[in-house]
């Protein structure tokens, strides 16, 4: 049994630490401690990534979160040879992080049960684990998929081009009649190299890269990025109204997407009234976001040092009226959905994610809360506005589509109360000064967690001697949750796949980065 405190140091959300404060241990000690803490220590992996140590090799940095005690922990190790042992077999939530490390830095992961590329790009440096002899990169989704063989077994391949207007991704089902034996999801089609582009940042482009990490979570990602800059340049004070604008925008983003999801779930079971009204209501909430910054997805609204704009007294009155009307419509539409037995019959016991499984794979966000895990950054690691006024957490036990739908609706209700309670704080706003290239603390590490509508948005920055990013790690909630979708489909009917998929509604571009 390794000593937790010798491997990890406790961290706080959005606080700057000297990189030298993070203990450096042997890789065996770090990995063993991670597996142990995630197994029964109540921790989960928030981020696990590598960075280059010139002349030495690579450094692995692991950030664990203990939601119950509101404690973050950070540990690291040096790899002199590009090779590490896999802990995925005992700690399943590490599997995707390990594959990512292998892909980005060409570090071989020994003993990984299914070592496949994550995003099908070339390694950041060197040849990489999957480099072919002719030097060409890999083609997306050209991997040995798990296959089931025998009589009456059939394979269904869906995507990357889909029937609806959605993002590209490949889904491979192994079926026996209507029953799914196994589903494998292969993404990476939208890889844009955001993490690599942010090395050497910040500059005037950085915030725009972060804004588009996942277009529907713009406010969450941008807030996480700005909190990092603010922690690294502590001289800058963020005005209270700026924090209030950020929180209101974040909750508006949550409401817009939850409303859209409730409508989309209704659409997937062909429940007409809710599906047609929610599409419009989602647009209403997006329009309210546009009242702040002129963009329906909140681009340009959140900036380092606060928020770019706020509303005046008249604008707030208008927003309040618009918001109340739209929320009442949403309440009607959602009420109709949850009161219809034919809908409940479809939602219940469909796509069940048991609590144990959700814990083991480190699921976050509404999907985790629907499986009975009390896990919400706004409660566990609050920053800014959420320290002042805590927001109630929605939770369900059944872990099925119904629970995920219900959690979304209850969260929308809670967000509505929060927004209406904070409208008064938006006035007398001092716009943040636009500093394109702030001077940052050198040789530091900051972790910034924000509860986006899909779950924990995690950004980690490591700065070098020159005060620029040596490494910028983004973990979108979808990164944790895609595995959950694969697993709930086991023994589910293929007929129910679209419904299960929509109940998670994960991001492709947030995963692909």
């Amino acid at each position, binding site marked *: 049994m390794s000593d937790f405190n010798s491997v990890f140091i406790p961290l706080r959300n959005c606080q700057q630490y000297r990189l030298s404060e993070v203990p450096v241990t042997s890789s065996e000690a770090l990995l063993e401690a991670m597996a142990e803490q995630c197994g029964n220590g109540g921790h989960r992996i928030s981020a696990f990534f590598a960075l280059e140590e010139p002349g030495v090799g690579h450094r692995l940095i692991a950030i664990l979160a203990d939601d119950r005690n509101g404690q973050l922990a950070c540990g690291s190790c040096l790899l002199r040879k590009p090779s590490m042992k896999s802990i995925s077999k005992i700690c399943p939530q590490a599997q995707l992080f390990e594959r990512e490390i292998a892909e980005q830095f060409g570090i071989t992961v020994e003993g990984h049960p299914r070592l496949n590329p994550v995003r099908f790009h070339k390694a950041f440096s060197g040849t990489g684990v999957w480099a072919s002899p002719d030097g060409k990169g890999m083609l997306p989704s050209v991997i040995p998929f798990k296959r089931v063989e025998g009589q009456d077994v*059939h*394979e*269904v*391949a*869906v995507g990357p081009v889909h*029937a*609806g207007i959605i993002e590209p991704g490949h889904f491979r089902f192994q079926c026996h*009649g*209507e029953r799914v034996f196994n589903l494998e999801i292969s993404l990476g089609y939208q890889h844009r190299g955001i993490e690599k582009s942010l090395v050497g940042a910040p500059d005037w482009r950085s915030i725009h890269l972060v804004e588009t990490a996942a277009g529907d979570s713009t406010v969450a990602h941008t807030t996480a990025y700005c909190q990092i800059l603010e922690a690294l340049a502590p001289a800058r004070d963020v005005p209270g109204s700026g924090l209030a604008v950020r929180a209101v925008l974040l909750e508006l983003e949550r409401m817009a997407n939850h409303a859209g999801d409730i409508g989309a779930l*209704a659409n*997937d*079971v*062909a*429940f*007409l*009234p809710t*599906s*047609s*009204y929610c599409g419009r209501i989602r647009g209403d909430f997006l329009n309210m976001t546009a009242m702040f910054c002129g963009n329906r997805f909140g681009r340009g609204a959140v900036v380092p040092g606060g928020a770019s704009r706020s509303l005046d007294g008249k604008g707030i009155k208008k927003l309040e009226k618009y918001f109340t009307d739209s929320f009442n419509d949403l309440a009607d539409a959602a009420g109709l959905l949850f009161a*219809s037995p*034919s*809908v409940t*019959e*479809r939602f219940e016991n469909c796509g069940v994610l048991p609590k144990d499984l959700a814990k083991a794979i480190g699921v976050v966000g509404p999907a985790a809360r629907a499986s009975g895990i009390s896990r919400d950054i706004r409660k566990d690691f609050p920053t800014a506005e959420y320290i002042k006024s805590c927001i109630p957490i929605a939770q369900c036990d059944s872990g099925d589509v119904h629970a995920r739908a219900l959690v979304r609706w209850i969260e929308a209700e809670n967000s509505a109360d929060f927004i209406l309670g904070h409208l008064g704080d938006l006035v007398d706003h001092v716009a943040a000064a636009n500093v394109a290239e702030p001077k940052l603390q050198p040789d530091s590490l900051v972790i910034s967690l924000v509860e986006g509508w899909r779950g924990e948005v995690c950004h980690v920055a490591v700065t070098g001697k020159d005060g620029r990013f040596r490494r910028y790690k983004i973990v979108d909630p979808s990164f944790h949750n895609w595995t959950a979708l694969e697993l709930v489909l086991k023994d589910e*009917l*293929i*007929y129910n*796949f*679209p419904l299960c998929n929509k109940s998670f509604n994960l991001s492709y571009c947030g995963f692909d980065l």
Partner: protein
Amino acid sequence: MADTRTMAFNLLPLLCGLILAPFMIGVVNRTKAFFAGRNGQPLFQLYFDIFKLLRKGAVISRSTTWVFRGAPAVSLASIVFALAIFSFSQEGAALSFPGDIILAVYMLALARFATVLSALDTGSSFEGMGASREVMLAPFAEAAFLILILAAAAASGSISAATMFSAAVPLPVRILMFVSLFIVLLVENCRVPADDPNTHLELTMIHEVMVLDNSGPDLGMIFYAASLKLWLFASLTVCCIMPAGLTGSVAGDIAMRVAGVFCVSVLVGVVESVMARFRFDKVRRMLLFASALSSLALLIALGATA
């Protein structure tokens, strides 16, 4: 003179069906649009779509054979055939002979057979799944439909479609037939709660997924055949509660039944608007329920004639 008149009245219901069937889909869509708070598409949209498709060329996959190319025509022809038997007035049908009802049922089965074969011919995993679902539901829907026809035959003492749905059938039998036939209509015509005609999700479709590869005139024929099939079932449903001779005049009867068909389309639209789609296994149970209603109708009919 009287012969021409009779012939005209025998052909009129068939012509109504052939001309008005796409309009019926427009009524269903408008009803749904009303519940969704929308204006909805034009009532004549399906006519526009069919004409547009007929003018287009077709893209035919190289992996298919003549089965795929022939299937839309076969299925349209079979449904028109069945419609000719099932479109009747008081005086007879466009096509009528003792036992014609069995031929009509077989024609509907032939249309399904052609569609399923063409779906399998494409080799697509989606279409194969759709075909498998279609034939999984078919026996249940056909059972309900056949028992219902037996009930009508037993009660009316006729084995020809034109005289089977008559006022001689006792009212309770007709009401049971109406409900059972309406359920069969929903399933056979891929309406909610059995299937969702508007979904884009190929993994959940039943009927639509079998025609994913069809395009141009073939698709136009499929759309037209689908609307005719809906008309066929809707007019039979109407005949259950509006037997011949209700208004006293032949023309009046026909007019009333056409109006009745549009009432059924509104009813279909309302059902689609107020409920979600069933789980797949529950569709079979719904059809078993329809079979039970048909059997009950048969028992009552046998009891009444005994």
